[in-house]
């Protein structure tokens, strides 16, 4: 059935409450999303904090026009990440050689993780920009394909197709057996 006549447009204060609700659920996801692009955990955490501050400042201009608030947060995250990468004069994808994996004292495990990390990162680099973005939004951001489609300005079907093609490509490169 169709639901028509949804009550009124939320006020800015209602949007603020919603943003506060999203903070706990999405801070980590936004940080991971940024991390994939910039390869630095501390910077990714800082940028995730900036995303929510920027969202708060821009709430007056936010109106739900097909993009849910969590999707809007990732748009902001994307823009801030691009700004950061430009500033740092780095490539948008993660430079594997600059990433340090922390939290494991066993050198064999760490070495193994580094190898896996480089393999996945190398595979991610071989995706198109849009495929990489779909994978990032779906796998790291935890968004639905509809939400990812809204952000990318694509149809749900196009995102699903892009997603499948991207994972097949990753699987081929990473050598997961059929």
């Amino acid at each position, binding site marked *: *059935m*169709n639901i028509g006549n*949804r009550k009124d447009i939320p006020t800015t*204060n209602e949007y603020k409450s919603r943003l506060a609700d999203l903070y706990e659920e999405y801070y980590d996801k936004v940080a991971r999303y940024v991390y994939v692009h910039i390869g630095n955990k501390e910077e990714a955490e800082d940028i995730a904090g900036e995303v929510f501050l920027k969202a708060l400042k821009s709430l007056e201009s936010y109106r739900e026009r097909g993009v849910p608030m969590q999707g809007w947060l990732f748009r902001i995250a994307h823009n801030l990440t691009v700004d950061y990468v430009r500033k740092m004069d780095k490539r948008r994808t993660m430079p594997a050689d600059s990433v340090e994996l922390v939290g494991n004292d066993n050198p064999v495990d760490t070495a193994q993780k580094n190898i896996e990390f480089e393999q*996945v990162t190398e595979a991610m680099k071989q995706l198109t920009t849009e495929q990489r973005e779909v994978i990032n939004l779906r*796998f790291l951001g935890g968004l639905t394909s509809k939400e990812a489609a809204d952000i990318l300005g694509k149809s749900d079907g196009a995102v*699903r*197709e892009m997603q499948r093609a991207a994972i097949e490509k990753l699987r081929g490169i990473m050598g997961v057996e059929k």
Partner: protein
Amino acid sequence: MTEDFDRILDECIDRINRGDNVADCLSDYPAYSERLGPLLQSMNDVQKTYAFTPSADTKRAARQKFYAAMGKQGRVPPVLSFFRAIPRAAAWATIAVLVVAIVSILVIQPIFNPPMLVPSPDGNFAFLISDERNDIGDFESLNVTISGVGLQAAGSLKRFEFTPETKTVDLTELQGEQSQEIWRGNAPAGQYSQVYIYVSEVKGKLESTGQIVDVKLPSSKLHLSMSFEVTDDTVTRFTFDITVVATGSNGKYILKPQIGDSGARQDQSLLE
């Protein structure tokens, strides 16, 4: 065919993002498991590679900045404004009391024993079931037994539950624009963010063979994340749309919530 596969892959990714495991998804789609398995494994590899949990200190500092900025905009979160107004020692004592109170009132009580809402024909909240047409045409009847419904308040751990007055609905009779009210009563006014339906049994009778089949659920409940408001002076009618989908060509079906066709609307004033 590819489009079907894309949808199934997409659904499995959603399920894994919500905490399901790869094996469960593969067992629901045995016809596709050979192709699905490696793809979902690749997804796991990517998620594992980039998984990291931001440090608690950084997150706390960022949260403080966020609420401070919100406060500057004229909406100081109640907890922060309260603690600014009292001395530090008193604040710690108050925190201790509040923690105990919050744990018992907000966490233990609502989670293990959420308040049960009382039905009333004049209530401000009505709950309806509908069915979006997907593979419902395969069924002569599809009886879903709902043992309970939960409403999650937005921005808190408060949850309310009620037992439907009509427990079993036949989804074949609720297609498209059709819906059936299964409960009406009084719900606390406020913002809600999630709705759960606890399903105890689903029995379907196939149109083609008359065979009775079990229809699976991804878990024991159907869950919708959706913001809506309940007010004291209007009737909020929430429609939970359920759809049944064939899982490939193995004759199995699953039941899913259909977010696009679900939602709340305020019908008429109670004061009229």
